[in-house]
């Protein structure tokens, strides 16, 4: 007979521990345990049945895997936490006795490790453990960057010490410097929450959100202890990531930091990037490269294989390259003109970037000298302009130090970014009101000739489209085109305002549009004025048509059959009579269109049948899901069609006017 199993000896009861059990096992306090879990990446889990896990009478809410907790016992940080706990005990005992000076002595001894020989700890090994490779770290950089940029912009409070904020700011600026030098920023988006940035770092897309300045309210329902713990970890992480990124492009880390300039709010300008010492540094880099690169024989073999693969398969090749070696991006930039899809070139990152015809998108503003007016947000503009190749960015003195020029009248300025409405009333009578605050020497409404004035959105739209937008659309006072999100993935068949109509409309819509044209033409001949209205009605009809597509299809088919039979009959009769057949459809164009439509309808019908068959084989739950999905898709596509038709109408009107 099998042995009788006791309750709580196996299964869930053994695999999970409650939080209190874990704390007791590790002999830590709850805040320390929380900290440790966040740093080590141990997350709360959910057992299938809570009742089977905990034996206590009160319901526990948080569970962990026993093995995780067991593993935590080996963590060297645990010892540090315990030491600190014992110190706390000593201090509280001293305070309880009234020995305040004793308590202070204990505390100062602990907080001055260099005097007492008791070291504080670092999180280096934890970072290494959680991110075994650099790519892992890059993949998790979204969260890290968002947090650090957020904390860099917080006001300092008792919960968020100024030291932490300064450190966050510094790390963020260093990271921005890397992005500028390596030109790896790809997109940016002005949202109502903040500014989104996307960069491509060594083949990984990193997206982060930076808040607007002076906007952060501290709310009560955020646990700052937890956030602070995350930030501590992420600061360590970003420090190491920065080091790696800097050394990968041959720069020295940390860059030289000028405290005086930083006091003057120079921000990016407070740092001076230094290359490694010229001779030794290069050698070192070479050595590193050798160290990184795989065995040359293997590499040669891989190259051979790659050559045999067609060039079209560039993505795979690129991935391979990215895997194979850390590339030196500076070198790549220098040789930027070479054909980009050559897999034998030692660098994957360039390959991954989309090719823009002729111009490199990351040197978009390289020939400009840009001046920022005092009402524009300097930090994001400076960062974006610099990372897209602009070397000379000047701004008003009130925006802080580190500008290329603070003189608004500098003749070398080609573009000025302004964000204030043009004032209609002339200010001439008032004369030049002297403003001590700014270095501005122009009156409110004056313009310097030979310079392009644009609103800030011009920069963002140009960057996202990879080409310079026409500045007259973004002139001060002009009504701006909408700022579209560059992160929306293009869905097949969805309306995209940036693409021409012909590229995005599906076939059946194009055909219908053609019909509409003809009808409209006919209308024009008859009653010229009502084109627009008739168009409207047509569209409405179209929509209805789409809704009742299936029924229509069937009817059409019958009609076609009928037509075919009739045609045949006529032909036969003609043959009998010995005459030539008079083709009913005189116009070959319409005929072709008719054929196309037929083919399309047939294809659609077949597809629908296939889908129906597939649907029949799904389980009920999945079928429901699928149907729901189809419903929303249809709705979306109807909306898209509506938008397209609207645009078609507008374009037609424009064409008619022209």
């Amino acid at each position: 007979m099998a042995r009788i199993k006791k309750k709580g000896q196996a299964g869930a009861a053994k695999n999970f521990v409650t939080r209190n059990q874990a704390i007791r096992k590790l002999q830590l306090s709850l805040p320390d345990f929380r900290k440790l879990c966040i740093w080590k990446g141990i997350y709360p889990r959910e057992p299938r049945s809570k009742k089977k896990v905990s034996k206590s009478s009160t319901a526990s809410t948080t569970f962990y895997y026993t093995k995780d907790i067991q593993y935590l016992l080996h963590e060297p940080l645990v010892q540090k936490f315990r030491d600190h706990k014992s110190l706390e005990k000593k201090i509280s005992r001293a305070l309880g006795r009234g020995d305040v000076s004793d308590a202070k002595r204990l505390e100062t001894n602990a907080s001055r490790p260099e005097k007492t020989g008791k070291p504080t700890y670092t999180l280096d090994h934890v970072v290494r453990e959680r991110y075994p490779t650099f790519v892992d770290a890059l993949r998790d950089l979204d969260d890290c960057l968002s947090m650090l940029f957020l904390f860099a912009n917080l006001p300092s409070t008792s919960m968020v010490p100024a030291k932490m904020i300064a450190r966050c700011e510094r790390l963020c600026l260093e990271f921005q410097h890397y992005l500028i030098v390596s030109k790896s920023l790809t997109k940016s988006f002005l949202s109502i929450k903040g500014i989104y940035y996307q960069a491509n770092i060594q083949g990984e897309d990193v997206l982060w959100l930076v808040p607007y300045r002076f906007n952060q309210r501290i709310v009560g329902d955020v646990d700052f202890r937890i956030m602070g713990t995350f930030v501590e970890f992420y600061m360590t992480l970003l420090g190491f990531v920065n080091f790696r990124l800097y050394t990968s492009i041959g720069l020295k880390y940390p860059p030289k930091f000028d405290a005086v300039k930083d006091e003057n709010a120079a921000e990016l300008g407070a740092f001076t990037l230094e290359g490694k010492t010229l001779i030794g540094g290069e050698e070192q880099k070479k050595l590193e490269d050798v160290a990184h690169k795989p065995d040359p024989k293997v590499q040669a073999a891989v190259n051979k294989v790659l050559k045999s693969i067609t060039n079209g398969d560039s993505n795979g090749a690129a991935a391979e390259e990215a895997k194979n070696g850390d590339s030196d991006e500076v070198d790549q930039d220098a040789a930027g003109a070479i054909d980009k899809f050559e897999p034998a070139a030692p660098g994957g990152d360039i390959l991954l970037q989309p090719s823009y015809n002729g111009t490199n998108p990351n040197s978009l503003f390289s020939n400009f000298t840009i001046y920022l007016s005092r009402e524009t947000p300097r930090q994001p503009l400076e960062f974006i302009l610099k990372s897209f190749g602009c070397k000379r960015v000047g701004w008003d003195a009130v925006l802080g130090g580190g500008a290329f020029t603070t003189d608004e009248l500098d003749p070398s300025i080609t573009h000025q970014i302004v964000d204030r409405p043009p004032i209609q009333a002339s200010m001439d009578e008032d004369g030049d009101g002297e403003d001590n605050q700014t270095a501005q020497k122009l009156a409110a409404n004056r313009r310097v000739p030979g310079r392009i004035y644009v609103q800030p959105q011009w920069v963002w739209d140009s960057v996202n489209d990879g080409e310079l937008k026409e500045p007259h659309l973004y002139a001060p006072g002009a009504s701006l085109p909408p700022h579209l999100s560059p992160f929306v993935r293009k869905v097949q068949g969805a309306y995209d305002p940036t693409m021409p109509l012909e590229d995005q409309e599906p076939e059946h819509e194009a055909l219908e549009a053609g019909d509409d044209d003809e009808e409209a033409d006919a209308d024009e001949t008859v009653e010229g004025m009502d084109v627009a209205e008739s168009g409207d009605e047509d569209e409405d009809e179209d929509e209805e048509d789409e809704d009742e597509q299936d029924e229509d299809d069937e009817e059409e088919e019958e009609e076609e059959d009928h037509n075919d039979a009739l045609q045949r009959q006529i032909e036969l009769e003609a043959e009998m009579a010995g005459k030539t057949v008079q083709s009913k459809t005189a116009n070959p164009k319409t005929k072709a269109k008719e054929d196309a439509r037929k083919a399309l309808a047939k294809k659609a019908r077949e597809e629908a049948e296939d889908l129906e068959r597939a649907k029949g084989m799904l389980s009920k739950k999945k079928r429901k899901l699928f149907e729901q999905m189809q419903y929303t898709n249809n709705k979306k596509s109807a909306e898209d069609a509506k938008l397209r038709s609207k645009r078609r109408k507008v374009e037609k009107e424009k064409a008619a006017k022209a």
Partner: protein
Amino acid sequence: MPVLRSATAGSGEAPKQFSQPSRKGKKAWRKNVDVTEVEEGLRELNDEIIRGGVIREKASEDLFVLDVAGDSKIPQKFPKHVKKGLKADEIINKRSAVPAVPMRKRPGDKTTDGVIAAKRQRTDWVSHKELARLRKVADGHHESTVAVKDATFDLWDAPAEPVAQDPTDFLPEKVEAKVPKSMKQQPLSLLSNGKQLPAVPKPTGGYSYNPSFPEYEKRLAEESTKAIEAEQKRLEAAAAEAAKLEAAARSAAEADAAEERANMSEWEEDSEWEGFQSGVDERPSAKQPKRKTQAQRNRIKRRKEEEQLAKHKAEMKTRRAQEQRIKEIAAEVEDKEKQKALVLAQAAAEESDADSEIGEEKLRRKQLGKYKLPEKDLELVLPDELQESLRLLKPEGNLLKDRYRSMLLRGKVESRRHIPFKKQARKKVTEKWTHKDFVI
């Protein structure tokens, strides 16, 4: 008890044993112990100091002099010839030998002898601020102890530590703990579909500061329907609450009325005296099960066997039929699987697109931890606040809350709530009757 006594002041009494007749009783209390002797001694000591120092501590040279003057008895013998001092001088000379404590600071104090006196420092002084901080530390609110250092080496490319091979070391090598597989599992996502949300979801066009009209309109409509729904729900809840309260009040009133009635009619109701009885005639009416006979058992057994056989035969038949068209079935199954995979792939592709964008997340029913996930802020610029200019933009939402919520949503931590103070013992409040304690 030590008794202070000056050597010169003789008490005149013979030395005797210290008398303490009893240690019991009120006399032995601290306040009742006789200390006049001690006080006397102290006073004498003080007098001596005033007169120029404690005599016992003085050197003999100060106390004794070689008398080279004439006879001291002469003035007594011839008092008329001796010049008496003034009474005033006498009084003045009586003054204390101890210099007075200067009450005023004088400029002269600043001039020193060149040797700078060490400034007296209270090395053990702890300010109130510091004390408050220490108390906090003792409560476990310590500041970060993570050392802030710039990275000085490449963490991912660091050379492996050289393994020191000590031939004399006979201890076995330390075995590193293996990382459990459970550590690598993704955290528990709070989404209903169980998928991991990206750390920073991609913004759609509706979140633009200068959105295109259709996108903005769509978002506005969505948000407004959501707000309306929430308001309706709130109103419904309020109405339900009110109805419940009303019902409770009504039932309470009814119960009261019934009780009253019952009190009134206690003796008028039917009772056992009149032959009525309740709850007695509930006799079990079910028939007792009889035993099955052997014949019945046999019949049942036969029937079961027959049924089983028939079932077996039917199964075998279908199986044989299937065996004959096994290839067809295989093809069919394959086809089915393919179709299924196709449809599912389509669905998955749709979903993954939707997941990585900002939007309304569908949460799972079971929450993680004790508290609910905090609500998302409304991130929408109202139509009348919508500005085209970046300068006039009023940022919406709270990024801090957003980040925190994202952590919770991805299951990195369980949701917590700030507890501003501990639960305190409830105190019973009673009314005092002091207002009645007066007499006119």
